[in-house]
């Protein structure tokens, strides 16, 4: 089956700076289960791209395999998409990014796709600080293969058949911070107010921006006893801060209490304003961010919001000194040493 979304436009829908209405950022009709958390994240991505005035064709969306990895088909239909193989999206994104540094790279993965089969690539894409946004739609299970526990399922959490998970879970957010990710956030698919600014800031971040989004699987892991169910997450979520993201230094008026406010200025002048809720937590300090996540976890809580950011992030192109011009735009005269150079090479081999 192939689904085509029925298009009808509200004449009065507001337009962004590029003159596009929000529906311009939509994709094909979703084939996920009704109520699946992943669909809410797709709509946050649509909203974020609309608000950021992104030209869809200047963004490439990539994913692995899973229900979550299907979602790039459901947003930004004017963007090129790449649904790769299970757990290997980071490598495809790395190559794509190396080929053209001027596009925005948006990766979507699942907890199986990232924390199990794709753990190796996830770890290494962080190490290289590839300039991309990487969202894990984390439901603690393998949705597409019908609900088996994933490596992010919490110890003691019950799945639909009542079985208790015996194993320690992998905490992707604290792992990412530990590995040196330069932007790490955590959120909940049901909290669009928090998720949209996080996505906007992540896309602006010049390096690897990771967002771990708890995204309940209504079909296989939304039962009583599951720590990734809507009810459980709503009860246990605790935000680090309320957040606002303002691209490129506009005048902003802040209504927060000055004492608990923190502003992070990004490379291009964009501002992240955080109204801190968590105590003893500094988003610019790796150690402090790790502690905050792990402390919350030990209390059975899920700390959400922007957890850590390094505003001095240098991405892979900077590290390996690639030319400013995208590699895929270079032509023969810039690439081929030519026949005369070859004669000299030959001479050196005699």
């Amino acid at each position, binding site marked *: *089956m*192939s689904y*085509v979304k029925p298009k009808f436009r509200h004449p009065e829908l507001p337009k962004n700076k590029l003159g596009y209405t929000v529906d311009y950022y939509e994709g094909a009709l979703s084939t996920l289960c009704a109520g699946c958390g992943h669909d809410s994240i797709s709509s946050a991505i649509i909203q974020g791209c609309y608000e950021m005035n992104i*030209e*869809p*064709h200047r963004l*490439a969306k990539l994913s692995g395999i899973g229900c979550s990895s299907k979602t790039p*088909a459901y947003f930004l*239909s*004017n*963007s*090129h*998409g*790449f*649904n*790769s*193989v299970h757990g*290997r999206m*980071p*490598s*495809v*994104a*790395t*190559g*794509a*990014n*190396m*080929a*053209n540094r*001027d*596009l925005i790279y948006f990766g979507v993965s699942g907890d199986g796709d990232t924390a199990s089969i794709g753990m*190796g*690539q996830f*770890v*290494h894409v962080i190490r*290289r600080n590839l300039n991309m946004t990487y969202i894990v739609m984390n439901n603690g299970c393998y949705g597409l293969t019908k609900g088996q526990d994933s490596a992010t399922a919490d110890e003691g959490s019950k799945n639909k058949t009542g079985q208790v998970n015996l194993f320690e879970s992998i905490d992707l957010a604290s792992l990412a911070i530990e590995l040196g990710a330069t932007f790490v956030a955590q959120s909940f698919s049901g909290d669009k107010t928090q998720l949209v600014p996080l996505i906007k800031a992540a896309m602006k971040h010049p390096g690897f921006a990771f967002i771990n989004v708890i995204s309940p699987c209504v079909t296989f892991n939304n039962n009583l006893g599951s720590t990734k169910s809507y009810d459980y997450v709503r009860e246990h979520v605790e935000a680090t801060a309320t957040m606002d993201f303002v691209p490129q230094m506009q005048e902003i008026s802040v209504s927060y209490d000055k004492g608990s406010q923190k502003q992070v200025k990004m490379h291009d002048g964009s501002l992240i304003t955080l109204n801190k809720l968590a105590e003893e937590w500094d988003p610019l300090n790796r150690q402090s961010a790790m502690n905050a996540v792990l402390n919350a976890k030990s209390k059975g809580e899920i700390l959400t919001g922007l957890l850590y950011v390094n505003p001095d992030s240098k991405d*892979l*192109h900077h590290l*390996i*000194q*690639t*030319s*400013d*011009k995208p*590699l*895929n735009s*270079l032509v*023969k005269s*810039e*690439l*081929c*040493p*030519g*026949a005369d*150079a*070859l004669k000299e*090479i*030959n001479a050196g*081999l*005699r």
Partner: protein
Amino acid sequence: MSNTKVNDFVVRFANVNGTGSASANFLFTKAIFRMGIPVTPKNIFPSNIQGLPTWYEVRVSEKGYLGRREGIDMMVAVNPQSMLNDVKAVKSGGYFLYDSSKKLHDQYIREDIHYIGIPLMTLCNEAYTDARQRQLFKNIVYVGALIALLDIEFKEVEGLLADQFQGKEKLIPSNIKALQLGIDYIHKNFKYPLDIRVERRNLLKDAIMMEGNAACGLGAVYAGATFAAWYPITPSTSVVEGFAEYAAEFRTDKITGKKNVAIVQAEDELAAIGMVIGANWNGARSFTATSGPGLSLMNEFLGLAYFAEIPTVLVDVQRTGPSTGMPTRTQQSDILEAAYASHGDTKHVLVFPSTPKECFELVADSFDLAEQLQTPVIVMIDLDLGMNDHVTPPLVWDDKREYKRGKVLSAADLEKIEKFGRYLDVDNDGITYRTIPGTHASKGSFFTRGTSRDEYAAYTEDSAAYQRNMDRLIKKWNTAKDMVPAPQVYNQKNNSENGILFFGTSQYAAEEAMDILKQEGIAMDAIRLRGFPFNKTVEDFVKSHKKVFVIEQNRDAQMKSLLMIELQADPNKLISVLNYDGMPITADNILKQITKNLSPSSKLN
């Protein structure tokens, strides 16, 4: 009899890995090369960094035979560990050069060979004080001895040292001194030169000496590859290292230091091929290099690139399998693995260079092919070609040559079409049009996927649409037959009812064997494969001969299988000539296997 040994012998050096023998041995080979005499060295090295035995075998052949030859005329034995076997390996009447600082034990004495004892250690201990120098210069002293024994021109060696130590001229005199120690010792104690010796010729003209891997790397630079990802594995490592070196030279901005190239050492081969696919998808020519174990890991991604139709270039430098096998020995045993890599109905374009010159050319061609066909192209070489120096004609490049980027739509092209269909077979050749991300604001975007899709790249589980796509891929495959490098046919018209078929590094030994057969009055037609899928020329060659000897360097006759599968060739007429001991194939071996199979009637006289 003695005269026949001028410019026709094999010297084998038995060394200890990591003792600096490689550069001394290379000096020896290169001096003979510069005297205009065909020479071919083979490294026979262990999978080890220091301490294990390593051999370096040099064949000198006036007739220009560059394959390996059995039978060692002279052993330069400086490794006590392997000495007993090294003594046994010398041909009757041959020479055994050894370090006579200590007396040779009786067990090493054979009546039928000549012993040339040189007190290498004693000479070096007397001449040098530094321990490292004493060790290193032992190698140079034996090169000196060989200069005298084999009549190598001293000035060529001097010239090589001058080249080698450009900018570090201080190091030259101590090297010359070591050479002289060896020469003097021979002059004082032995008759020289020996019956095996060299004589200047001008047979090589403008030939160069190069390793296949470096030529592959250079080919990728010339082809305009801007991205490479790789994971180190012997014997492929020096492909990307070669690419990196040449790219650093030609692609770095002198002022900013920024590079028109990116190279990523990946975490494994899965990631390496994934990155290459990502970059090619996004319009940058890119490639990776690996060997058997890496190719095994890349299977899933190769299937994706085949099915989603993404250009990909991969150099497979084959080594001895299965599994880790003998990682530092050669073989042609990844053929079936490469041809059908990945699950489902998948097949891949292969090219088979056999010389460094062809490595350069066919790698460059592979980038054109991959983009024109929008599919992986696997360049099949082996350790022998990749990691050994070969005498090869000079590399050539035509400045008028343009990169063939295949069917890629520009923004202007997209403006002109009503509706873009990524997998629409507009030209009826099975090859469809693609777009690069970022090209056009509202036209040309599509979803690349490994799942089944229709002509407009939309996901589908419709059987008819799936099958249409699979059939189009076969149409493309047929189109590829006349695009891959054509085979080399040795006779324009058939002269014999029997033919020989080979590819890659078997060329050297096969041509030598053909010469010998011809001298014996046995005419044979021959064909050298250079690409897969096979075209009509290959099909006709197999059809029009009663017997076809298929020469290949693996146990299971993989190329024969491929001919059977793809051409429905009769297995009874395909006679395998196999070599799978990890050493490069020899003409002798080929001759033995062929003559065993020939009936007397095939002799013409």
